[in-house]
């Protein structure tokens, strides 16, 4: 393997922060090593010339934008939507204070 790494520990830490995950030192070492190996494998895609290839974001060309009338319909009552909430207050989800 070449000395230059694709992804180092700092990059993994940065990504973990973006994803709101804390990593222990042990996890950081392990994930850094594994992601390096996975990304190393994935880099085989660079063998392919894709300059003129359009990207596929949906597998079927049959799929088109779907429009519907903007009508008011019955929706989930707030009480049922809140039933799974770990914390709630009246008709709202409750979270720690956001604005200091």
């Amino acid at each position, binding site marked *: 393997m070449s000395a230059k790494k694709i992804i180092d520990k700092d990059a*993994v830490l940065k990504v973990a922060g973006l994803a*709101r*995950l804390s990593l222990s030192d042990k996890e950081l070492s392990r*994930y850094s090593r594994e*992601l390096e190996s996975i990304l190393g494998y994935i880099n085989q895609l660079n063998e*392919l010339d894709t300059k003129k290839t359009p990207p596929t*974001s949906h597998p079927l060309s049959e*799929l088109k934008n779907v429009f519907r009338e903007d009508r008011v319909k019955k929706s989930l009552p707030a009480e049922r939507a809140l039933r799974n909430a770990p914390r709630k207050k009246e008709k709202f989800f409750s979270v720690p*204070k956001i604005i200091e």
Partner: protein
Amino acid sequence: MTMKDTPAAGAWLERIERLNPKINAFVHFEKENRLRQKSSRPVAIKDNISVAGELTTCASKILKGYKPPYDATVITKLKEKGYALMGKTNMDEFAFGSSCETSFYGPTKNPWDTGRIPGGSSGGSAAAVAAGMVPMALGSDTGGSVRQPAALCGIVGMKPTYGRVSRYGLIAFASSLDQIGTITSEVSLCAELLGAIGGYDELDSTSVDVAMPDYTKFLTKDIKGLRIGIPSEYFPGDGLDSDVRNSLEEAKKIFKGLGASLVEISLPHTKYAVSCYYIIAPAEASSNLARYDGVQYGLREEAGRITDMYFKTRTGGFGEEAKRRILLGTYVLSSGYYQAYYLKAMKVRTKIKNDFSGAFTSCDAILTPTSPTPAFRIGERLDDPLKMYLSDIFTIPANLAGIPGISVPCGFSRDNLPIGLQLLARPFGEETLIRLAYAFEQATEFHKRKPNI
């Protein structure tokens, strides 16, 4: 067996209660709820498909206690048609895996050898059907999660075309790849169950309004004149187990004997499918899993500041593989890497898709192995994520191309482990798969062998 002669629900319940401690196929199973159902048409449901008021946790700690306020469309349809829902089945956490080992509820065991994995991610559904706890089950297939466990458990697994079955109420993993599929003991039940859950749904804007035939009309045994493509890329010199290779060679002869013709085809971008998939799937997953933050449902780890609550909840709630995929997905989408990874993968996806559309101009279906090996041992690949990812090399391309695929039993290894063959067809060609699979099943005895448990 056909639905006409299945035993009453009570007999299935007894079997589930007796065998589940050994197999761990069901993770949420409340007998009281089951006994109230009078139907003798039992279906097990993968734990990522929403059933109103019943635990639906994706086998993850982060969805602990979650009971959806609504039914998935497939559940609404099953209820309307009189099926009995027998409980929620085990899976790799959020369907991230090929072995059913990453579940928060512990691994499911393969009924053919309880020291081995049942495949994944729909391993609980496949093991439940293979062990005779239910005749049929629903799973979901993002990269082979219905077909691979069906192959490893010696039963039938169908991943329909992307858009054939509504995904409303399926908890999202990778939205451009996910599809609900069927896992059944026989092809006739596959035809029946697919017809029961398929069709356009205005609640899922990716479901497609294409007329759906009565699939049971294609259980005919007549496959004369059908052209089956054999892609050399799926029969590599190395990496394919010799028992799998031999079973597939036998299968080719059987299809030929039934009047189908075999044609050589090439799918040249096959070797890039796993790389392409392990950019697109984690990228979409990292985005879909951003919603688990302790606010609306599931686990919440309290903290004084909201950001700390997010960190504590997600760090404590997601398992090891889920974190690995979130990290990988966030990385390939992050600023500066999007073009090199995500955009590149979407372009390679076009090439893989074009391989299939080219191949289907000269054949009606494609025959491949479902999995390169029979079931491996529990723990064997857990320390090597890349090796685990390569387990899905033959099933991933169909998800990237959106085409339907079915796995059918086609043999046993020297260790008496089931082997499956995979058939692929063009979009909305499910009836071709059912015709071929049924003719093959009826011409062979593999589906009649049951595990000794």
